[in-house]
């Protein structure tokens, strides 16, 4: 069958463009609502916008920050701290998770203390972090590390435990040894969960950034946000929050995309459904 006329734009591309337009419009509508609420000083009783800075103030403050020569140092310092903490959490969390997932003995030995440490908020770690590590930078990296560790660890454990035992049994019956089962069955099966854990862990590492940078302030987006709080510069606080949000989201998506490169079969499977 021949098409009556070849369309100049693919309908699929149009649909995609429409979706992006909708997302953009949604963001614009939110900002417009925020501008209206803050300039009109709306008071809804439970929540009030009387003292919330308006988008315009925030944009002005963002402009000042972007033009400032210190921006590079702030961003560099923060990205460094998050990256090293995340890297350490990956290097420790994944192997630990794989081991705990496979060995009941290790699970009984290691999981109880780890589960005790998990709910401890980053702020509570500050004094010990300062005492335990040789430099302020390491103390800060420890805080982002502890923020990233648990999502990575738990998702890895979950992934390993969720491997279909029939797959393991089948490969054993086909003559696979312990190591082969691990690399060819367990690892690929738990990989999607590991990637999800990494993506969440990246987000939680950024989450702990402000806390980490309270340890020693000079540079960093978290420090910038907290110092603005101390001198009551509310627009700057929002700028700091947005920077962390955007960079955090961006790096989280990046981790997911990189992870997905290792999981081509997973996405094929999903598309088929």
């Amino acid at each position: 069958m021949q098409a009556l006329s070849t369309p100049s734009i693919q309908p699929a591309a149009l649909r995609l463009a429409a979706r992006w337009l909708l997302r953009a419009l949604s963001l614009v509508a939110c900002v417009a609502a925020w501008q209206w609420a803050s300039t009109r000083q709306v008071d809804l009783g439970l929540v009030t916008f009387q003292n919330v800075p308006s988008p315009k103030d925030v944009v002005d403050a963002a402009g000042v920050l972007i033009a400032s020569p210190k921006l590079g140092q702030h961003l560099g310092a923060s990205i460094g701290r998050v990256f090293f903490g995340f890297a350490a959490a990956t290097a420790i969390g994944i192997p630990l998770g794989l081991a705990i997932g496979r060995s009941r003995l290790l699970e009984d030995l290691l999981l109880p203390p780890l589960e005790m440490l998990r709910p401890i908020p980053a702020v509570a770690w500050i004094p010990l972090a300062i005492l335990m590590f040789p430099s302020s930078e390491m103390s800060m990296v420890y805080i982002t590390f502890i923020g990233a560790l648990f999502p990575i660890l738990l998702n890895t454990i979950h992934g390993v435990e969720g491997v279909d035992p029939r797959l393991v049994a089948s490969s054993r019956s086909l003559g696979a040894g312990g190591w082969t089962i691990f690399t060819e069955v367990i690892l690929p099966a738990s990989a999607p969960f590991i990637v999800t854990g990494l993506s969440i862990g990246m987000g939680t590492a950024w989450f702990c950034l402000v806390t980490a940078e309270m340890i020693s302030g000079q540079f960093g987006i978290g420090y910038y946000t907290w110092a603005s709080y101390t001198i009551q510069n509310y627009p700057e606080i929002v700028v700091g929050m947005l920077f962390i949000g955007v960079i955090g989201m961006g790096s989280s998506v990046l981790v997911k995309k990189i992870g997905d490169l290792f999981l081509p079969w997973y996405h094929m499977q999903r598309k088929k459904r």
Partner: protein
Amino acid sequence: MKLHPNPRRTILGLALSLPLALGLAPGTASAAETIRIAIGTQDTTINCATGGLLIRELGLLEKYLPHDGKYKDVKYDVQWKNFTSGAPLTNEMVAGKLDIGSMADFPGSFNGAAHEKAGKKSIFVTVLSGSVLGSGNGIVVPKNSPVQSLAELKGKTISVPFASTAHGMLLRAVKAQGWDPDKDVNITTQAPEVAGSALQSNKVDAHADFVPFAELFPHRNFARKIYDGSQAKAPTMHGSLVDAGYARKYPEIVMAFLRAAIEADRLIAAEPEKYSELIAKVTGIEAEVNYLFHGPVGLQTRDFTWKPEYRQAVNTSIETLRLLKRTDSDIDANTFINDTYIRAAFKQAGLDYDKQLKNYEKLPLKAKDAVTAKPITDFKHLTQIWVQGEPLVRHYASADTAFAELRKLEQSGKKIRTVYAHDQDSGLKLLAGDAWYVVKGKDKEKEISAFLLKADAQAWAAKNKGTVVDFDTLNAGKAI
């Protein structure tokens, strides 16, 4: 299939009966007006004690709240909230959750500016405690550091709580050294809580802080004070602010708060040891440090009057605020500081405000020497010993008598809480353990002088042919 008979009717019934039940609840149908008095305190900043901790713990506010005239049938809702610094307190005041708050000159200026930005106004109604020379702020180094003065910190890292009164002192001290704050020294931000750990593990070369940390950290034995704020000659004060609208509406309540503060001051002046212990119980800051500030001839002076030096402190902080915030938000110190309420409170209490305004004396010590029983008049050589288990501090007219007594007490097995000395030149109260001493003469002619800075001790020793020793050597009683 019916799961439950008429769930809709049940929900409707509940929804209707709830407001009815709440309406009949005691208190909601009352015609009496409830006035909220929400007071923000900084308990760990112990020199604010008369504006917060003492009033709250001793129930002093209720004694002065009005119950006549327009307050006849009023119910008071007194709320107390504690903070470790001025910024979150200001945040809550701006958000309308607090009516009165106590903080230092620097955070106070930010408070004024933040209110103005939000379309409100706050007024600085009284001073609580201060030093016209600048004591109260100080710089400490880790205990094992070889540094003995600020000059040795060139090129090093000094941390300070951002935008605090100590930050202002540090900037001024750096300027006085002729340094460029961006190049010659590395100033970073650390809250006092965090700095304590950093000093213990030698992560910073020095730390500047406000009351009481520059003395608390040395007392806890992991730091040593090497600079007193008075060397920067920048007056510093802590005081109380009130929302201007609230003050206009309820001036009698503001007066009641101030009367309570005046009463708290009277009580602690009369029994400094007792209330230092109370502050210690509530805050965990040891009584020895509290007494250092609140006791007679203390490091700071409790004062309610707006001396020109304290007005200057607020002005300086407004200027520095403009620099730090990079905004043009300007508050006029003349309308920001409002002394009408404290003047009225003084009058009501039968005190003379103008007389106190001219009084620059520290709280005097009316005591007799513990050995000779003669009244002590010269406070520059005053040395004090607080023995464990004794409720009161022992006073000695000179360091030599005190050290002799100290040796006797320790030999008899008594534990010593702390020893206080006074710097011979400035008269500042010191923790004797960290001070430097010059010993002149022998036996009956022996004269011991105390100094905060090693350099001062050495200068005096050179001029008067004495020997410089530290506390441990002196206490050991070895022949010099």
